[in-house]
């Protein structure tokens, strides 16, 4: 049974009960943002790189059909099996089908947010297949039965004490030992055994190259490589927007990706997979799952340019203080908030409102997605489609009436500062959320208008 999903504001309230932890979470991610700034500022052509990447992706989105056909043709020629999945369910069935064909019940997986989006682990578990996530962060959250809270740093919400406790419970490490060296060593031993005994490895895809039919997976730990190289079957799952036209374009994207994500010049491994080695089977599952719909939404299509670097999360002052889980979506943060309403507008109606529209996200984005403008536009769509709360609608009606009628506005202002009672901050009189942690402004004796009439108007 699925537990009830808390709205972003409520989940944030819970997250904010531990003030010290919120401060730590904020500082940790701000540190990553600062590293990104240093890396970006060391490249004189940084802004040119961003606009180039954005243009390349624009070209891809405009010619998606042709590039997909080209990619499929070339990948097939390389001896790779290609599968097409219209939605999450079909994706999961395809993956399970490959596993079942090989009569396998255990597999390793690495670096795939798409399988999170499709809830593959749950599906496979129900079908008797055990999946082990091999990247350290992903393994930690998997042991805790939690989803990743960040697309690049899946366990960033956890402190080393939390990891120590988790490993103590699941891997039998010493209780209370939180030494990172010790804990990583324990994870390493645990995973090494797993790698050697799994016949199927699943990875994500960072870039798929139409021209050559190959794909690139970027990692720091090399676990994707170890999984793929040791296994008899390599399954790579990708959303169709991962395409880039030519191999030379990698030079643009690889320079942007790691710098934007963690401030590294490049990830430790940028592994190119082109054809299965002798005796190996290689599959690519190309997934739509709402992407065609998003591509058809003119205002939101640019969201498909995303290369999943997570820079918008690290810079987002809201994300840093609410944590990834508060977004109740596989992809959290600003980018998640413009992708999620396309997947389920009712469930994710709160997300575009979980932002101050400060615009920092759009300006760190390596492919220049107009994230904060899209958040604004999603708000309009969500209200028009009828997903706004009724109390909000009533408040807005009263406000609109007053602000559209100067006489009402002026009289209202005089009568004990109409604003005091009716601006959105104060709509729920009894439980004024403004006042919980803030003093109200002190109403002056006269408004500016009254002062002007008394002193200036001749």
């Amino acid at each position: 049974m699925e537990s009830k999903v808390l709205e972003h504001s409520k989940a944030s309230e819970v997250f904010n009960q531990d003030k010290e932890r919120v401060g730590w979470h904020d500082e940790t991610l701000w540190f990553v943002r600062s590293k990104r700034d240093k890396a970006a500022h060391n490249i004189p052509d940084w802004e040119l790189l961003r606009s180039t990447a954005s243009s390349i992706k624009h070209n891809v989105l405009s010619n998606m059909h042709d590039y997909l056909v080209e990619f499929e043709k070339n990948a097939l020629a390389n001896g790779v099996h290609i599968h097409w999945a219209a939605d999450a369910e079909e994706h999961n069935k395809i993956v399970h089908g490959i596993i079942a064909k090989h009569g396998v019940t255990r597999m390793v997986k690495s670096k795939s947010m798409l399988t999170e989006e499709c809830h593959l682990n749950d599906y496979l578990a129900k079908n008797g297949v055990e999946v082990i996530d091999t990247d350290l962060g992903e393994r930690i959250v998997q042991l805790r039965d939690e989803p990743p809270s960040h697309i690049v740093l899946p366990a960033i919400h956890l402190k080393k004490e939390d990891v120590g406790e988790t490993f103590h419970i699941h891997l039998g490490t010493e209780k209370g030992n939180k030494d990172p060296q010790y804990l990583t060593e324990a994870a390493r031993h645990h995973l090494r055994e797993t790698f050697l005994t799994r016949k199927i490895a699943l990875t994500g895809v960072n870039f798929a190259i139409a021209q050559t039919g190959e794909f690139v997976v970027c990692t720091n730990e090399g676990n994707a490589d170890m999984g793929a190289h040791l296994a008899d079957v390599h399954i790579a799952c990708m959303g169709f927007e991962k395409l880039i036209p030519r191999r030379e374009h990698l030079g643009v994207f690889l320079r942007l990706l790691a710098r934007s994500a963690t401030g590294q010049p490049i990830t430790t491994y940028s592994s190119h997979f082109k054809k299965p080695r002798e005796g190996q089977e290689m599959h690519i599952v190309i997934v739509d799952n709402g992407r065609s719909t998003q591509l058809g939404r003119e205002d939101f299509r640019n969201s498909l340019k995303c290369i999943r670097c997570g820079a918008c999360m690290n810079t987002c002052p809201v994300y840093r203080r609410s944590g990834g889980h508060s977004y109740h979506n596989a992809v959290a943060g600003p980018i998640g908030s413009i992708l999620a309403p396309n997947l389920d507008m009712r469930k994710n109606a709160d997300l575009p409102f979980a932002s101050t529209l400060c615009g920092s996200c759009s300006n760190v984005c390596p492919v220049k997605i107009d994230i904060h403008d899209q958040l604004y536009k999603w708000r309009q769509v969500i209200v028009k489609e009828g997903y706004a709360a009724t109390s909000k609608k009533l408040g807005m009606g009263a406000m609109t009436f007053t602000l559209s009628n100067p006489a009402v506005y002026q009289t209202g202002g005089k009568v004990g500062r109409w604003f005091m009672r009716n601006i959105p901050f104060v709509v729920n009189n009894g439980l004024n959320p403004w006042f919980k942690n803030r003093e109200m402004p002190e109403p002056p004796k006269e408004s500016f208008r009254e002062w002007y009439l008394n002193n200036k108007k001749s």
Partner: protein
Amino acid sequence: MRVGLFIPCYVDQFYPQIGVATLELLEKLGCEVHFPLNQTCCGQPMANSGFEHLTGGCNSLFIDNFEGFDYIVCPSGSCTLHIKEHLHEEKREEKASVIRKRVYELVEFLTDILKVENLEANFPHRVGLHQSCHGQRGLKLAQMSELNAPFFSKPEQLLKQVKQLDLVSLSRKDECCGFGGTFCVTEEAISVRMGQDRVKDHEDKNVEFITGGDMSCLMHLEGILRRQQSPVKVIHIAEILNSQIK
């Protein structure tokens, strides 16, 4: 030069002294300033909440009140940005388009149009500048830390002309304060935490005043400062720039 003074609704109601300072400052700098009496609000509170379709009345009123001026000047980056980006009226689109081009936030009007280089202002205090996001990233009043691009700051350009003013350097130069319009109540917990963190950055630098171009952000920070019984005060940049100008 005929200037239409556009005073945000919450400034009209809660902070009339900012309207007065803006008006006095512009007059001292030689502008003929008019305050159109039937103005109410730019419509941003509705639009940012997803109700842009309800802002037709506000848009009509805005055009009624502000057509015909050489410039429209407003002591708020956020309200100015909203007009620049969202003022439309089907029947009077041409007029709306003229207004969108002629509307200026106070600071950029002083630096870019009046080209003020010598303010006679005096403010003997230690001050932190809060860069409001819509002014900074929206109107580009200052370079943002996200971009690899040369530094500039129009508000600092003006504050540096103020005698005896000691402007501090913050550890996070352009982090959002968490006001965010209706966000400040719909996402109360995050909004407050963001505000508290912003306040702390200023307090760590021992400021006496936090200034900025948007009173909405400052109102939020003021609410937090007063709740914490902090001695730090907020003051709109118009009040500093207008202090003792002859």
